[in-house]
Structures are given as C-alpha cells and as structure tokens.
C-alpha cells in the first residue's frame, strides 16, 4: 500500500504573528518556519503503517516555493521514503493546492492520502476535503484512530458531539486530528540519511491547470485587545466582583 502525505511549510506554532506596518498582510520576515503540526501527525501515521508492514512506501509532497525543501527533508528524516516538491510561484489557495495534488495523485496512484485537518497559518481546514471531492474519493476527516482493514479503512473521527467511526473504501483521503498519534523527533542519523533520499521537483506551471487566486487580502489587522483586568486577593473578593461588578452570577 502506497501512502501519499501532502504537507505544508507554515510559521512555527510558537510564533506570535503580527500584521505588517502597512496592514497589507502578516509579517513573516525572519520568523521560524516548520512543518505544520497536523502534517507531522500525518507523516507519523504513515510511517507507523509502514513500520508495521501495512504500507510499502510513504511519499511526502508539498506545493510551495524552493524553501519548502527544508520541510520535505524534515519529513524524510521522520521516515518518509521520498519527496516531491510541486514548485509554485507565490502562495496558492486551498482550491489550487487541491488541484495540484489531484495531478500528483493521478501520477502516483496512492491507496491512501493522509493530510492535516488544518494548516495553522490560514486555519482553512479545506484542502483534504477538496482533494477528496475532486478525486471523487471518500474522506475521513479529523481522525483520532485509523485502522486498515483489507481494502477499506476504519476511522474514528473527532466531532463536536464526541466521536464517530466510519468505514471508507480505499483509496481514500484521511485528515488528522491531534489525538491520532504523538509524532517522534528525528534522530541525528535519520536527519543525515534524509539528505540522501530522493527529492524530485516538478513545476506547477507545467501541469496545465488554472491555479489563479480567487480571493485577495484587502488588509490584515490585530484583533481588538481586551482591556487589562484586575487581580483579586481572595475567593471572596472574586465572588463579590462577579456578583456586583460584572453581574455574571447571582
């Protein structure tokens, strides 16, 4: 079973992102970039399936600029076998990314595609679902458990009311939630070894698809800030303030 894992280079989750001074976009100058955390979980799941003998090959792919090679190498160090960079000019939107990934799926023919449920930059939560739709494949989003059972996958999903388990026939698209697994750290020998693994580059402009943006960002601003509150010295004072000042309890 071949597994394809689309990953994204994003701002590290520890960075507090701010708007540029002209409010035209976010300021990404000199900030630390990482593999999107949900994509790390996706890579980890694929690698575990390989380690348990259920998968023969794990291929990671990203749509992005040359700098994304760094994140592809990081995924190779986590255990992926091979990487593909679909090189694009500028940042594409989920719709266009899903179109590019459709082309990659058509040439790679994976049995399973695992993505993150959301990229923590745009918080869009769309790409996996769009990809599944374009390929007319079933999907299992927000996965917290994944079991391969012959030619289908049994997936437990984190939904607002609790958990839902579904069975999707393969090939299928799965998107990861936080509880699916805890990704490993890459060891130094694996980081060294990853440098020798295959990383092929394709140009998005050669794929013959329309990847033009459908939306434009007019401005990016800070959210309204909350006014500084007060510190109370005791539980009694807290209760008094909640009753008489804030009037939120009786």
């Amino acid at each position, binding site marked *: 079973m071949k597994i394809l894992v689309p990953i994204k280079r994003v701002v590290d989750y520890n960075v507090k992102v701010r708007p540029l001074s002209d409010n035209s976009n976010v300021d990404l100058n000199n900030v630390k970039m990482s593999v999107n955390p949900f994509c790390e979980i996706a890579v980890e799941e694929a690698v575990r399936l390989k380690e348990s003998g259920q998968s023969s090959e794990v291929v990671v792919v990203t749509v992005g600029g040359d700098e994304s090679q760094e994140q592809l190498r990081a995924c190779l160090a986590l255990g992926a076998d091979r990487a593909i960079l679909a090189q694009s000019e500028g940042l594409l939107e989920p719709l266009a990314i899903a179109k590019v990934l459709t082309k990659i799926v058509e040439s790679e023919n994976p049995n399973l595609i695992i993505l993150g449920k959301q990229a923590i930059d745009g918080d869009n939560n769309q790409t996996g679902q769009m990809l599944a739709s374009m390929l007319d494949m079933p999907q299992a989003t927000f996965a917290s458990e994944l079991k391969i059972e012959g030619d289908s996958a049994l997936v437990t999903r984190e*939904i607002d009311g609790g*958990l839902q388990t579904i069975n999707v026939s393969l090939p*299928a698209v799965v998107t990861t939630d936080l509880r699916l697994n805890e990704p490993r750290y890459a060891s130094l020998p694996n980081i060294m070894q990853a440098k020798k693994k295959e990383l092929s580059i394709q140009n998005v402009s050669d794929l013959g698809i329309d990847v033009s943006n459908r939306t434009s960002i007019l401005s*990016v601003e800070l959210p309204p800030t909350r006014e500084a509150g007060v510190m109370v010295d*005791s539980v009694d004072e807290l209760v008094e303030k909640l009753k008489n000042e804030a009037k*939120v309890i009786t």
Partner: protein
Amino acid sequence: MSILVVAEHDNSEVKGSTLNTVTAASEIGGDVSILVAGSESSSVAEQAAKISGISSVIHVDDPIYKNFLAEDLGNLVVSVADGFNYILAPATTFGKNFLPRVAAKLDVQQISDIISIEDADTFKRPIYAGSCIATVKSTDSVKVITVRTTAFDASPVVDSSVNVDVGAVVDSLNNSKFVSDEIAESDRPELTAADVIVSGGRALGSSENFKIIEALADKLGAAVGASRAAVDAGYVPNDYQVGQTGKIVAPSLYIAIGISGAIQHLAGMKDSKVIVAINKDEDAPIFQVADYGLVGDLFEAVPELTDSV
C-alpha cells in the same frame, strides 16, 4: 441575491449553529433558503420553516443522510446549488466536513470561518489562531462560506412558517459507511451554547481531580471545557477542547482554571464577555486576557469558590 443555508441538526431538532448561520445569511441580504437533509427529519423541517429571516425550506429525507456523511451531503448540496449566489454552513465539524467538497465541485475558493460581512463579496476572518484578522475579498461568482457561530446572534424562531418543498435524493456513491457513534450524554449545557463555562487545564493532573471543575460547573449551571493538554492527557473527552483547533466559545462568563493561556487556547475563548483566571503562576499569559485574576493553588481556590457561589 439568493442564499442557501445548510442546516445542522440531529434529525429531531435544529441546532443552534443553524440559527447563527441564518443571521449571517440575513446580513448578506436577499432570499434565504434552508436545506434540511436528514432521515426521519420532518420535525426538523417544520422547525426550520419557523426560523425568522428565511423564505423557503428544501427538505430531503432519506436514510443515506442520517449520519450526514460528507460524500452524500456534499453531492446533494451541489445538486441544489444552481441559482444560489451564496452557500453557507456553520463552521462546526458538521460544516467543515462537507462544505469544502461542495466548493471544489463548484470550482470555488471557500471562505472559512467568517466573523463579519463587510459587503457582498468582502468578509473578515481570523487567521494564525486569531492573532490577526484578515479582510478577504472573493472574486468567485458563487460564495461558499462557513460561519463562525459565536460572531452572529441566533435568529429567532417565530410562530408563522414558510413553505417546505421536498427535494430529490442524489444516489449514494456508497464508498463511506457509518459504523458507530460515541456521543457524550450530559445534563450540562452544550459548550458552544452555554452562558457560563468552567474550563480546566493540565494542572488538574487526573480525571479524578477534574471532578472539582465539574462540581463548580454544576453549581453554576455551566458547561465544562478544557485545554488541549487536559484532553491529550485523557482527563476529559475530545469534545471538551476549546481553542484554535477545538471549539470556539463566547459565553458571558469563562473561568479558566490551571490553564496557562497559550495562544491556541485563547483563540477559542477570548471573545467571552467576562474572563476569570485561576493560576498559581502570576506571570501566566492567561492573566493578560482575564478581567479577574486570582493567583493561587486551584486545589484550594476551586472548592472554596464552589462553596461560596
């Protein structure tokens, strides 16, 4: 303008998220239709017909829609999409699951999680865990949008009803099957609808200890929430998680207990009206958003608080 809202429900009742989404649709302005797809769901269609601001209901009832599987629901929405300028669903796990499938089929870039409508094609939405708010303009002729429910009031339910039209079922691809549900049963209010929320974090240390959070919540008639750390550690189920990648809440009162206030947690609760933080570390970032902060050991403060409210 013609707007379609896809209703979230449980086959017996309309969920509150649908009422918020109708308000967003009404703000766009125009004829608002609502699609109720479900199984044995006629009571939902009847209720939907009474939501203020809508002009018609499309009801499609079939066992294949019972569990709202994304493949079938997505194809159904695509089949009724013709003629609508906007297609809206709540930004809950229900809406997030199927709506991007619709957008892809219509060749539209979905706008996720809008918090305001600036004009017919311009919307505001949080990005980077709510660190920034982007104003986004769409050039697509049909706008496919998920709506952050806390950003829009619930549309009232009125006495008079509009027409309910029966829509056609779309054949299932049968490539996805529902197996089972583990839906939490609770007497407490639902997290996203609660007026008061008491949330606990990693500091609770165990599910046993988490009971002091539940005791306070029950005294206040509140819902119970949690940080990711508390969920990951197994103290509480996944559906308690508040934050960037969990639930977005905005109650009148949010009490954060033993939660440090990571940006991913704040993303889910900082629009609450009044925030209270109890933490033993006076430098915890949660105090920067709290209206009332109490520095102290939660294992002393919380039982005392429960006794005095």
